[in-house]
């Protein structure tokens, strides 16, 4: 029983992290149809920033990580994607692959191929006991952080006029422009929010690993992209739910697969993804059978 509750909490925590990462991708995709693979490099940049600045205190390190995430995200938009407005989603995806590899090489040049380490929030690495059940404090903290961010994001999207503009653009970009919503403003906003979410993902992952290398964000973004697609990348809530599901399933499989099979954990996750996509090609949360084009 104890083990089940512990693994459930760990799985919810892993799901929350990937949910945020998938949301980071889904917000941008909703507006300009870009599945930004280079979102992984935003996570990496914020991760490096946390490692290098943690000694200055969390109240310095976390805002800097967010600022770096937002700036890098906006630079990607201004430097690359804003110049490709008429490109197809496939072309945009390939461009984001190119950008991702380029940034990984830049990180290698700047910080070498070795991982950079620091004890980030070591107080979160311990376990606590609640009612006789032991939990990793980080898992609980991750769930709380993700919950707070999600609550704030939902409030922003539903209550503020900027959030409504973003929702309108994600639902129907052409009509949004005909209504008078400035395209550049909502696109910039989606990249900025994506950067904030990437920084949050970088924080919880850095606390977990204490080490950041040039490809730190890659495995996260691969799973997040998969999650976003199976949830329905076309809808913000779909991306979030799909990311959560993939993180949850991955963590549960890690806890419950027999040890001689745990090497194949990702294979089981991808098998699940294939099954979902065969039966729901547009994603789990998208009504109807086709993705909006």
């Amino acid at each position, binding site marked *: 029983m104890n083990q089940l509750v512990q693994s459930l909490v760990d799985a919810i925590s892993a799901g929350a992290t990937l949910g945020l990462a998938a949301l980071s991708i889904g917000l941008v995709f909703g507006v300009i149809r870009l599945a930004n693979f280079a979102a992984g490099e935003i996570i990496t940049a914020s991760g490096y920033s946390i490692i290098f600045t943690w000694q200055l205190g969390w109240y310095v390190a976390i805002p800097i990580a967010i600022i770096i995430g937002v700036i890098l995200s906006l630079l990607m938009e201004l430097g690359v994607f804003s110049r490709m407005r008429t490109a197809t989603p496939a072309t945009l995806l390939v461009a984001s692959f190119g950008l991702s590899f380029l940034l990984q090489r830049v990180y290698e040049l700047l910080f070498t191929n070795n991982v950079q380490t620091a004890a980030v929030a070591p107080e979160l690495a311990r376990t606590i006991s609640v009612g006789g059940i032991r939990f990793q404090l980080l898992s609980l903290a991750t769930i709380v952080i993700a919950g707070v961010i999600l609550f704030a994001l939902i409030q922003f999207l539903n209550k503020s006029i900027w959030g409504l503009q973003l929702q309108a653009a994600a639902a129907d970009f052409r009509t949004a422009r005909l*209504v*008078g919503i400035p*395209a550049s403003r909502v696109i910039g906003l989606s990249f900025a929010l994506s950067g904030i979410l990437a920084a949050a993902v970088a924080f919880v992952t850095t606390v977990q690993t204490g080490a950041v290398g040039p490809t730190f964000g890659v495995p996260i973004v691969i799973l997040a992209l998969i999650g976003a697609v199976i949830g329905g990348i076309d809808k913000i809530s779909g991306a979030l739910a799909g990311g959560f599901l993939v993180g949850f399933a991955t963590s549960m499989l890690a806890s419950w697969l027999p040890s001689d099979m745990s090497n194949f954990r990702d294979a089981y996750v991808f098998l699940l993804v294939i099954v979902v996509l065969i039966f729901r090609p547009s994603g789990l949360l998208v009504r109807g059978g086709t993705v909006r084009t």
Partner: protein
Amino acid sequence: MNSLRPTWERAVVSADSSQALVGGLSVDGLEVSYAGVPAVRGIGLEVPAGHAIGLIGPNGAGKSSALLGIMGAVPRSGSVRVAGQDVDGLSPEQVVRRGVSLVPEGRHVFTGLSVRDNLRLGGVGRRAKEGYTETLEYVLELFPILAEFNNRQAGLLSGGQQQQLAIGRALMADPDILMLDEPSLGLSPTAVDSVFDALNAIRSAGKAVLVVEQRAEFTVAFCEKTYVLHDGEITLELKPEDADNVEKLTEAYFG
């Protein structure tokens, strides 16, 4: 079936069209093509303030392309002037800020958002922030159903209510020129009547109205002038008194 002879009281702001054009729309030599295939071939029209101008024609005649071209939503050539000012090279959102709003074909309300939020979004394209509350009051007075269903998700409204919302959303930008692409499409006769009653009130309030429609007789009777568009060109100009003979006239023309 709607009456072929609606009895709207025409409230023309000024018979002198040069004066009325101060707040109106003037299009000259408008051309729109998709991948080299022309959809609109050099049309010209004027929509004075306080007037309704119709654009009718068969499917594929270029009616919607003309409206999208005026908005700058598709690449175009030719001149589009709003209140005497050139809007060439402007994006759709900039054209909205010059005082032109389009109610797109199929309504395209934001179905996942509430009626209130759809109207709020319509206000984003306003030229001046002042007067927002007055415009909202005007819209809710014009379409009382929107006040009643203020918190309802737009996707749950009927087709006619969604059309009212789409027009209300466009009016929230406080445009001088309101363009509508097939506002009667898919609506019941009663819903069509209420939409055109509202358009009449909007015209009477001094706005310029450009309406693309499939219902020829209805449109000809409603508008001060209606152009027939065929294969991207204006081929015929009709007056309200031609409403009874629209079929005969267009048949005689197109064979």
